[in-house]
């Protein structure tokens, strides 16, 4: 509880981890606020169904609050002026304004996860896919880090919930703003799951490698972070993990 997990991918697509955490927390009975910036609701729903969870049902029973970034943005850009002023500000309000912060987005998250009387969900969870999109839409790195900071205070500290965020990073990336955000988040994460493509290039049986970094050094001064490395292969309904060099294809 109260943990911040960073999902990071380099040279490959780490979104399978997002699908995993989404179905994992829903199955565990947690209340989930999913800020889905890159894909449509139906994309996540179709995959979730393969993993045994129905997002539609979860949304209907109030367990899942789903922010479909693409749709919100369309409403913001093409919506009628009057509609916008009378109703609530869009969570993606910052796209319209220059030099703006992500307060509206934070308010959305906080309102979604603050328990209402009669709620029996176990612990709130904030899931974000993926944070870099905010930078592409004009948010400054400082605004993004502030947003995460406020979310940590509200979700991890006050509500004793968990946060899982996906970011992309590149070995030779020239996106300095993105690298700044990623490095800063790494320093403050309790757990980092870092997915990378294989150094030897594409392989049919091993899709990549995952580094699991438990940031023990955050809690205990003299302790070293614990790092474990596994390789993985993604299948239609499952992801298999195995020790390096021990993929079924090799054995």
């Amino acid at each position: 509880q109260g943990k911040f997990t960073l999902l990071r991918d380099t040279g490959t697509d780490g979104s399978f981890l997002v699908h995993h955490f989404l179905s994992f927390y829903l199955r565990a009975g947690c209340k989930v606020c999913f800020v889905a910036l890159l894909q449509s609701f139906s994309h996540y729903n179709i995959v979730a169904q393969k993993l045994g969870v129905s997002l539609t049902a979860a949304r209907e029973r109030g367990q899942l609050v789903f922010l479909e970034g693409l749709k919100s943005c369309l409403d913001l850009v093409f919506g009628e002026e009057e509609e916008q002023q009378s109703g609530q500000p869009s969570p993606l309000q910052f796209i319209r304004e220059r030099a703006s912060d992500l307060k509206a987005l934070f308010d959305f998250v906080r309102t979604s996860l603050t328990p209402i009387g009669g709620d029996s969900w176990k612990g709130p969870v904030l899931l974000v896919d993926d944070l870099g999109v905010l930078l592409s839409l004009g948010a400054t790195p400082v605004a993004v880090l502030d947003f995460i900071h406020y979310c940590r205070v509200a979700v991890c500290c006050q509500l004793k919930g968990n946060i899982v965020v996906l970011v992309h990073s590149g070995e030779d990336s020239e996106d300095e703003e993105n690298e700044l955000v990623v490095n800063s988040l790494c320093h403050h994460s309790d757990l980092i799951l870092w997915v990378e493509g294989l150094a030897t290039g594409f392989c049919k049986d091993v899709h990549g490698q995952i580094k699991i970094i438990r940031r023990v050094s955050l809690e205990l001064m003299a302790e070293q972070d614990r790092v474990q490395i596994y390789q993985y292969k993604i299948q239609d309904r499952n992801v298999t993990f195995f020790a390096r060099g021990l993929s079924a294809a090799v054995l």
Partner: protein
Amino acid sequence: VFTEEDKYGLYSNLLFKYFLAEGVVCGHHLFVASAKEHPDNILKELPAPLLDDAYRNELGEEVTAVKSEDFQDSMKIAWRYQNLPKMEASPTTSTKFGHYYDVSKTMSPELLQSLKWHSFYLPEELSLQPNVKTCNMNSAYTRLLQSLQRIIYQEGFDGSDPQKKQKNILRIGIQSLGSVLWGDDICSSDTPEDIHSLTKFLYVLRGLLRKSLSACIITVPAHLIQNKAIMERVTNLSDVVVGLESFIGSERETNPLYKDYHGLVHVHQIPRLNSLICDVSDTKDLAFRLKRKLFTIE
């Protein structure tokens, strides 16, 4: 679908026209947007489709020539690769996906007659209305998005008109996005005024595509964009990203390894939609060549 243009735009233009030509042959609606070439002219230059028997003959000649040559070469590389199947040079008859085109001929006007399409030629659009800016996005992009959204809504591609029985697909082609002609300075300046216009545009476009029955190809003169961070972000926001690198004027032109080809195809991103897995082909080193009639990727 995002195509990084080759240096002189020759080959990316070809791919762009293939995409549109396929739309004509399949009876889709087209939306063609450009800031430099009038869409009417683009349509006039679409390649003519090769109809069933004709294409098999054309292909047959090309393919057999290739197969006998490289067969001997590839076996010498390493014993491990001996057992790998070669990449399919032509589709098998059972899976007919797409059509073939003869680039030495243009599409007949009869085929184009029954086509339903929309044109967006920036110089014309800008002269119609005063500049409009939304969400701090460049006005050309804003105008294009408004036009697209209007067509999608009015023609019911977003399912908003349940009355419409026949569902059709909208194929959108946007040429040379990001170039100076679109009013964007990311291709002409080291420190562009607004580095977010293009990515915001793509995000809104992505939203429009996701909620309608449409597909879009965009070509971008990526080699002109100084700020590489923009291309990284653009890649992240796209489903498919393909880069074309032509050999014209480069040292590769004289490399004997590439003597039969005109350039390389770099696949930077493939879609992973509605599934955990994606469709990765076994072959990752792709090159293209343009013969008199056919454009092939091997």
